């Protein structure tokens, strides 16, 4: 029961979904949609597990007065503020509309945090390229050159530097060529490889060959 049933569920669902791709007739046509709805429902239940875990871990820190415990307390407080505001003070289903308390928290707290975190990448891109783009090996040199040309080609400076050359050698054209030709080729090789890797992983899962996700016993 503990392992057989899950394996049967996985195999059935997987095979049905592969077939639905080729069978237009009902119910196969809509199964895709139904299953993805179910997935979302399960995910929405599961977030209870995640949220409780977050509170448990943070709560433990506070309770045992571990190092930095006040921050753990702050995690718990902000979580409950958001949840209580979302469920009780923001008009139910249309909680995301402009003007609700939830959307105010979103706009003034969540959004600046997420945008700034994202923007940190501007700095990290700088430090990563300074450190990593060194012509240590032939491969690294190729990587470096491609990055160099594309970077310069993306700003007007690149063209200014190469304006004395014939048009097709202008930096922006070289950058476009790199993007369109060798970059596309590499992307495609990666994509086709991924497709095959996905196919065989999926197949192993459907056939129950790969079953570590089910745990032991």
């Amino acid at each position, binding site marked *: 029961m503990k392992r057989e049933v899950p394996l049967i569920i*996985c195999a059935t669902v997987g095979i049905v979904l592969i077939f639905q791709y080729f069978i237009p007739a009902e119910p196969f046509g809509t199964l895709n949609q139904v299953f993805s709805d179910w997935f979302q429902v399960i995910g929405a239940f599961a977030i209870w597990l995640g949220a409780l875990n977050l509170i448990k871990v943070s709560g433990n820190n506070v309770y045992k007065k571990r190092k930095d415990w006040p921050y753990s307390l702050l995690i718990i407080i902000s979580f409950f503020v958001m949840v209580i505001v979302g469920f009780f003070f923001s008009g139910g289903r249309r909680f995301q509309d402009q003007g609700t308390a939830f959307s105010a928290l979103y706009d003034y707290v969540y959004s600046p*945090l997420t945008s*700034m975190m994202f923007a940190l990448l501007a700095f990290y891109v700088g430090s990563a390229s300074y450190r990593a783009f060194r012509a240590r090996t032939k491969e690294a040199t190729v990587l470096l050159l491609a990055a160099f040309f594309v970077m310069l080609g993306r*700003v007007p400076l690149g063209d200014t530097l190469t304006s004395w050359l014939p048009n097709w050698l202008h930096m922006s054209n070289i950058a476009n060529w790199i993007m369109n030709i060798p970059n596309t080729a590499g992307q495609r090789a990666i994509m086709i490889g991924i497709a095959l890797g996905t196919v065989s992983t999926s197949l192993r899962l459907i056939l129950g060959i790969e079953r570590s996700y089910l745990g032991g016993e």
Partner: protein
Amino acid sequence: MSTLGVWVGAILTLGILSFLYKDNPFYKVAEAIFLGISAGYWFVSLFYQSLLPKLFDNLGLTKLFGASNTDGALQTLFVQGKFSGQLWYLVAGALGVMMLIRLFPKGGWISRWPLAFIVGTTSGLYFTRYLASNAYAQISATLKDFVVAGHPGFLGWTNLNNLVVLVGVVSGLTYFYFSKEHKGTVGATAKVGVYFLMVTFGASFGYTVMSRMSLLIGRLDFLYRIWLGLIK
């Protein structure tokens, strides 16, 4: 934007920014608020965007509690006496509840059923989807732009470029060939493939730099223009 809101936003922004210097209490506050608020945000969103419309609406629970006017499976079954496909969403509800049984020490194993369902769905969908869009579509795209022999431009730039792409794809795929040692012809081809991959990585990286800079521009624009009013 309200002034208070802008100030809160600006202070939190600076909190995150301060991490670049080093880890500090200011960042820790911003981080803790971020973790709590975002976990709460997703908790609420998933309820309203998944649980409510996908499960409770379909089953008719929302109507039962007067939160909606649309009939669900319960209404069609008991009021109209008809079977509706929405009733199948009971299965989804059951699988969801099985997930929660994990909270009880002895019930962990039952959550493997919904897990198996999810893994099965993912495998089934990705199997064909990736084959179609990642493998077939890319092979077709690699071949379809070749100019046919005898047509004008057969020996032109287009075909040369197409040939470069073809060489790149074939050699790149060779690099991903696992069950043969990479030496001799295979090794040489795989080597060419590695160079193509390196160009791809370099180019993608270089291309991305711009985008990351613009994110920072957006944030600094917020700080200088909206918060401090230093620029128009």
